[in-house]
């Protein structure tokens, strides 16, 4: 594939990878802390790839307007301008227990080779080096059909061999991890970072390098990953953002350039 001459950032690359993977039959929740990337991915998918996807916010507005990203983030007030309907805490409980949200997005302080995510404690949980923000809703990692992991940094201390604490179960300890824990859904499908895209090997459920972003080498990924991912014989280049995707990002979803910082 010829190298794309278009200029884009790693954040825009992650957004496009996730957006292309979303489908009409999906039902997704957006909102909550630090969610620029899934928010932009859902916005882009609605415009280009999955117009029938159901979207709802943390405060349970169904199919809301998705106003452009702001530098200070989408504060709560961004979401209540227009929507199909509003719900309440009852719907939130129901939606997370029953898996009304079929797709979800998680980031983490630590992410490990099986896609387990830590948002609570780095170090010993009884005497942590870092007490993280926690996670509002770990249930969706169990009830949603699948979830995406996105990393804001690709570093050894983020992508670790084993998380110090499992806030959200990925594949836990291997192919039988979720089943043994009584979980019926498939869990993490993709892990997208500033350098690469990983999926999970079917037999071991360990992270496998799927593609490296344009301009990134496999060595660079290895050097910055705290575990040994499965490296297939051929590693492709992540399809870069297209002109169409970038135009929508620049004009409608992110005119202020939050993802271009």
């Amino acid at each position: 594939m010829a190298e794309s001459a278009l200029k884009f950032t790693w954040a825009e690359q992650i957004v496009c990878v996730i957006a292309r993977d979303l489908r009409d039959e999906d039902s997704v929740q957006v909102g909550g802390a630090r969610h620029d990337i899934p928010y932009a991915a859902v916005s882009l998918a609605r415009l280009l790839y999955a117009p029938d996807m159901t979207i709802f916010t943390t405060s349970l507005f169904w199919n809301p307007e998705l106003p452009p990203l702001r530098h200070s983030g989408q504060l709560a007030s961004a979401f209540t301008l227009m929507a199909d309907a509003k719900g309440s805490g009852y719907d939130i409980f129901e939606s997370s227990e029953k898996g009304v949200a079929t797709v979800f997005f998680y980031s983490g302080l630590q992410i490990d080779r099986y896609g387990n995510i830590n948002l609570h404690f780095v170090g010993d949980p009884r005497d942590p080096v870092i007490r993280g923000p926690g996670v509002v809703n770990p249930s969706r990692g169990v009830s949603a059909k699948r979830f995406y992991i996105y990393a804001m940094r690709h570093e050894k201390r983020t992508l670790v061999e084993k998380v110090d604490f499992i806030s959200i179960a990925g594949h836990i300890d291997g192919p039988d991890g979720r089943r043994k824990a009584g979980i019926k859904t498939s869990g993490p499908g993709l892990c997208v970072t500033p350098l690469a895209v990983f999926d999970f090997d079917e037999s071991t459920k360990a992270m496998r390098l799927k593609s490296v972003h344009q301009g990134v080498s496999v060595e660079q990924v290895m050097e910055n990953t705290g575990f040994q991912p499965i490296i297939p014989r051929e590693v492709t280049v992540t399809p870069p953002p297209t002109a169409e995707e970038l135009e929508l990002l620049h004009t409608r979803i992110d005119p202020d350039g939050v993802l271009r910082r």
Partner: protein
Amino acid sequence: MPVKSRTPKLATVDECLSLMHDGMTIATGGLGMFNKPCQWVREIAKRRIGNLILCSSPQASYDADLLIGAGLVKRTNIAQVSFDQLGLAPNFRYAAQRGLIDAVVQAEATLAGGYLAAAQGLPYHAVGTLKGNDIVKLMSFAKKYTSPLGGEELLAVPALSPDMAFIHAQEGDEFGNLRHLGAPAFDPIIARAAKVVIASVDRIISHQRLRMEPEKTTIPSRFITKIVHLPYGAHPTFSPRHYVEDEEHLRNYIQRARQSLGGHAPEAYKEYLEKYVYGPKDVFEYLELIGGVRRLTQLEGVW
């Protein structure tokens, strides 16, 4: 024949807070950065009612961080305390990390389940989605069990009935019927779960007008103990269709807390408390301090 009329539930801040005392379990409504009962939190802090067990809807922000910063909280039951995109909650993080408070690890499902059980008068609620993680191991309050109707492994979350709940809505009448103009979030459940429920509203509307549109009432007066008119009572958080978050004020708050905890300016946070919490005699004085009509007009004008 003389007939009797209905007794209003309109009250003063003092009347409401005379019901509160040290060591109580209290809950704050709203969610994350909207409808937080911020003026109630400031009034509680001003009266130094302490040793509190603080619950919230699953996401807290300014409400929890301020009560912790004022040294009034011994335990929290909240899934996440943060200022969303503006950053982590400095006082919560500091106190939780150093064990100055007992920050009980909770998730949306365990808190919502606890409130739902209390609202329904049940001893516990089943939660089926906390599996495979380490969170459950820290939840000594909950108990794993097998469904008596078939083998599924579930978690029993005990009913959570706060002694007092504080809720902020946009509108309400003198009898305590509330109207949330945005999402009511967990307020209707928390109101049904708590023993005493204190509401504040930006605006009191006439009972007659409210009755003409009963479909707009989000919490009926049956579940409200007292209602107080506290205009802009959710400031600096967001009050749907009334005013947006005061980002500038929130940034100043976060920065002052960080400066104090980091030791760069040990007095910075205390100055915040002195100026905005302990100093003002009522909500109107507070509103003058945050910039008065000029600032409030800006926060409203965004609509």
